[in-house]
């Protein structure tokens, strides 16, 4: 099987600071791949590089065999790589429904003049978008929050709405930046089920950055360990757990 995402010798340096050095791995459709590592290991920089928010200093990123390094964040998103943000990427003053609608932006047709003049086609496209957004919220049992501004939602609800928004266009690859942070134990279990389901049933490739090691061990197929910007290990959870270098770098065992 061809990899969905291929990183080749990826390096990102910020004026002397080596955030990532020579990182390579392949990610596949239907696979949950966790990126772990201590603070400052370069996990978020890796996400930023893949999604176009940081430019690689060296190396290459291929998505479905096509080079995507150097593209803008919106072009990479249009190609089918979507991400969430560590500190929440929702639009706080917009309702949950409007957030999902913004996620559907590229799929709602209707040109500028059609919109201005309120043409039938533009209004129909908008109505279809609204129906689609409501059904997406319904899928995650969030329909009752549709008309709430997201700044009034709990942290867990916000994470859920953000995931729904990211999934709205059915992207083949999803980057989840710390999806479990701020969730209560039952919500974590729920989130884990959702992630497993997206990969297993929908065949979506998932890359996730996470600190909670127990959740990573039980929810991912493959783990990539970063330390000081370099990949120090890659493998199945049980392999990584046994890896001495990982234990030293990440878990602090001697």
């Amino acid at each position, binding site marked *: 099987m061809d990899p969905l995402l291929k990183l080749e010798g990826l390096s990102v340096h910020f004026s002397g600071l080596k955030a990532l050095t020579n990182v390579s791995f392949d990610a596949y459709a239907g696979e949950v791949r966790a990126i772990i590592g201590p603070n400052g290991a370069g996990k978020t920089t890796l996400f930023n590089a893949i*999604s*176009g*928010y940081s430019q690689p200093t060296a190396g290459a990123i291929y998505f479905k065999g096509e080079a995507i390094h150097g593209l*803008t*964040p*919106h072009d990479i*998103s*249009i190609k089918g790589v*979507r*991400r969430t*943000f560590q500190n929440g*990427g*929702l*639009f*706080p*003053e*917009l*309702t949950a*429904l*409007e957030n999902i*609608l*913004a*996620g*559907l*932006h*590229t799929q*709602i047709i*209707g040109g*500028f003049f059609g*919109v*201005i*003049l*309120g043409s039938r086609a*533009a*209004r129909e496209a*908008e*109505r279809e*978008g*609204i129906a689609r957004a*409501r059904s997406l919220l319904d899928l995650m*049992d*969030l*329909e*009752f*929050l*549709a*008309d*709430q501004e997201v700044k*009034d939602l*709990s942290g*867990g*609800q916000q994470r859920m709405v953000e995931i729904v*928004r990211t999934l709205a*266009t059915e992207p083949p690859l999803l980057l989840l930046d710390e999806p479990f942070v701020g969730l*209560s134990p*039952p*919500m974590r279990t*729920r989130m884990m089920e959702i992630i497993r389901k997206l990969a297993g049933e929908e065949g979506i490739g998932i890359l996730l950055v996470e600190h909670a090691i127990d959740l990573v061990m039980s929810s991912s197929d493959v783990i990539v360990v970063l330390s000081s910007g370099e990949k120090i290990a890659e493998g199945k959870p049980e392999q990584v757990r046994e890896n001495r270098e990982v234990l030293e770098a990440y878990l602090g065992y001697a």
Partner: protein
Amino acid sequence: MNEQTSPNPPSNPKEVVASMTRMRRIFYVLPVIALAIPFVANEYLQFMANAILVYSLVTVGFNVVIGNLGQLAFANTAFFGLGAYTTAILMVYAGMPYMLAVVAAAVVGGLGGFLASVTALRGIRLYYLAIITLAFGELMRWTYLHADGITHGSDGLLMPQPSFFGIAMENETVKFYVFLLITVVLIKATSNLMRSRFGRAIVAIRDNEAATASLGIHTARYIILAFVWSGAVVGVAGAMFAALTERVFPESFSLTEVIVHFAMVLVGGTGSIIGSVLGAITLTALPEYFRQFPGMEELFFGIVIVCVLLFLPKGLVSLLRRVSPVFNERYYRD
């Protein structure tokens, strides 16, 4: 799952949508009621009503950049002046009919908006953007003053009598109907724009620009759109202002003027079209009312602004929102 309990009890969305659609009809009734104003107003009040229409467009346009896009860009007097001078110059020197000059004012105002957007796109934001756009406005005023071969400098440029498709706009009443038509069309168009994916992209950029790009939205394009739309609408307001005052002076587009525009946006409510109109009505009518207290006018004017901002930080429109959710403008159209 205790976290999924909503602060508000769930209601049937279909029912809510249907009743909201019915209530929104009041927005169509308001312009119809306005048609009766010339029958009850004397010439002075009619002039005030016309000025309110001009300032409604000024505020609606300005609010797109300030409220919806959330950028502190103060080039509004530049757009306003460009619209007014474009209209006057084209009518005086090219004999262009008024309605065509209005379209030209929209185009030139939109170009001004595009220029202002370039600074924001270059990553100049917040107070840097504020100061650079204020400078743009002052630069334009300096130009009107010194290009006196064309603009007649501080004497002002006298407008020929405008006409609307053959009907001479010879008194305040005719002007009112023409202005009302233009204002209603542009407010409706702005409302359509804001309640579409375009308007959502603009407010999304305000709330979180990086996340907006992550949804495949070309953010630069929508920053330009917001500025150009704002410039075009305010440019048309300038064309109406030229017809209203019949003589275009550089001093009409000074720094004080942009402060008044900004106050209208804040007093009415940022990011709200209804609020923009309320702000324009309040801050156009009140100074006239306060004229009966000579020497105290500015004091009262200032007190009103301070009180509204202290007690209604979301503007006068928040009072209406307490009455009905229909005044809670959303960014989609069902």
